[in-house]
């Protein structure tokens, strides 16, 4: 087991390097765009002024350095907690990210919790009451939840309450530390929309694996021993149905981050997703590289934790 963990951790390192080198490389192969943007903006604002010195700009941004020198600069900075400075505002990327991170984490946790609150009981009920009306209703809603784009649902939730009742979410962002109630007013709706989408997939998966486990011999044995329904379901069925569900849940961390980008855009929440999009539109490369690195670091750790949780859930993996 120990060797297995060490091997897994060691394999994460090349993956991380590969990603950051690739993002760096693509930026290097498609240079100029941020400089073009700056030149366009500056010359557009002050007509008559000479076009800026492109070489000087490139030097300021460090785009003139050899590839591996600037990569090494960035990597050593990233590992020591300094992710560079914005091309446009000269703000520290680390400060900005740390400021936005709690917002997205809060949104993500809320969405995640809501998804579990919906998916686990509904998935179990749909399985143990298979082919009942409730089961059909749940399955249909789950399929729609998968097919319905979150950005459409979010748009409708923004538009229709406003048309019908003149309701609108608070305009200014309120941190959770300032006012819990108002903060929840802002976060709960996007979190429910994200959670609904995530729950759809999870319900389908949980239902089918539960049905599979319910027909196993050891479950029949548990029933015939005269155990209570709750004991059978929780101790014998749910625990065995949980492994594929853990895979789905860990895959949904990506859905959470992707969903946060879209929800923050619709509901005007200043989180990581908005920061990332702003960086993309202004070609602010230090943000783009560092945030990609950050997202993938999170993702890699989650992949690792998922693998380890299999071992925890299924002793057969642990002993082999």
């Amino acid at each position: 087991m120990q060797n297995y963990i060490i091997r897994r951790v060691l394999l994460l390192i090349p993956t991380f390097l590969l990603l950051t080198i690739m993002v760096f490389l693509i930026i290097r192969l498609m240079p100029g765009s941020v400089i073009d943007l700056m030149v366009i903006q500056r010359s557009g604002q002050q007509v008559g002024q000479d076009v800026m010195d492109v070489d000087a700009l490139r030097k300021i941004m460090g785009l003139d350095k050899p590839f591996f020198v600037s990569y090494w600069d960035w990597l050593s900075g990233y590992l020591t907690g300094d992710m560079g400075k914005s091309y446009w505002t000269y703000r520290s990327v680390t400060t900005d990210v740390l400021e936005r991170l709690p917002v997205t984490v809060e949104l993500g946790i809320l969405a995640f919790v809501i998804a579990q609150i919906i998916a686990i009981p509904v998935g179990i009920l749909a399985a143990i009451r298979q082919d009942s009306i409730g089961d059909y209703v749940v399955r249909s809603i789950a399929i729609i939840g998968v097919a319905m784009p979150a950005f459409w649902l979010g748009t409708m939730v923004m538009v229709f309450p406003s048309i019908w009742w003149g309701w609108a979410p608070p305009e200014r962002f309120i941190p959770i530390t300032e006012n819990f109630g108002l903060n929840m007013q802002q976060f709960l709706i996007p979190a429910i929309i994200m959670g609904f989408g995530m729950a759809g997939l999870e319900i389908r998966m949980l239902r089918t694996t539960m049905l599979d486990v319910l027909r196993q011999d050891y479950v029949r044995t548990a029933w015939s021993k005269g155990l209570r329904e709750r004991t059978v379901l929780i101790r014998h069925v749910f625990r065995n149905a949980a492994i594929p569900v853990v895979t789905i849940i860990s895959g949904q961390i990506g859905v959470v981050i992707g969903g946060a980008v879209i929800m923050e855009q619709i509901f005007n929440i200043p989180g990581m997703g908005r920061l990332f999009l702003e960086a993309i539109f202004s070609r602010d490369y230090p943000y783009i590289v560092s945030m990609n690195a950050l997202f993938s670091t999170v993702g890699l750790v989650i992949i690792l934790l998922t693998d380890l949780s299999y071992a925890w859930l299924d002793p057969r993996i642990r002993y082999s």
Partner: protein
Amino acid sequence: MTETTVKTPATPKKHSLFADFFKRLVKEKPLGTLGALILIVMLIAAVGANFIAPYDPVESALKDRLAPPSIQHLMGTDNLGRDQFTRIIYGARISLYIGLGASLLNVVVATLLGLISGYVGGLLDLFVQRFVDLALSIPSLIILITLVGIIGSGWWQITLVMGINGGILWTRVVRSAVISIKSNVYLESARAIGGTLWQIIFRHIFPNIMPIMVIIFSVSIAGNIMAEAGLSFLGLGVPPPTPSWGGMLSAEGRRWMYEAWWLAIFPGLVLTIVVYGVNMWGDAVRDILDPRLRGGIGRYGAAVKRQQLGEKTS
């Protein structure tokens, strides 16, 4: 001699395979058939947009701006007076062309990398698997935003980025199939009689992974259509005035939705119906061609079959 004996029974079988597939689709998978019909309608809309659409998708007609749905404008008009029904028909083009193109590329990339990874193995496999880990570790939407944001958001750029990213994610499915085929005796004998690498790949491995390739293609379409719509929604899709369903719901359109509810409803509704249909189609193709790929659902299917058999015999 062996060639003739192999070929004769194979040729008529190949012919019925296709018909068989559709027969089973219609008979066993009503939702999958519905999905196929939705896909066909979309295909007709995309290819024949010039003939079907009642108005011009780009030209503005300001006197008709923000007109509610009526006989003249089935889905109303937008802030520039453009007929929304027309724009949705033309929008099918982006969704379909990018959706199908990216899915095709998914198959090519997944097959290529899966073959290398599974058949050659060794260090090359280790290297390819790092790419898979990479694509798994970072949310697809973030990769797509990053690459499209840097490379540019034209038709081929989006198709390329989505095709490669999705293809890498599918690599493991092809890889494990290739590994299991590799251990077959007939492959060993093919190698023993001096079959070249290409002969082995095209004669022996390809026919075996063909169903998986079809599955990857069918199952990917829905996700690719959704991803393209998401990019367009965020303002990273094929730039306006080209109509796309995601773009119609984006910030630009949202400003007018408070006055014109039909702008908020129809593009999303069409997108949802299409994604639903294509999803059902993909699931049906997978179930018919290779039920094992269903994961949990597959084993459940087997369990049910076992139970039904048991009930019949008892």
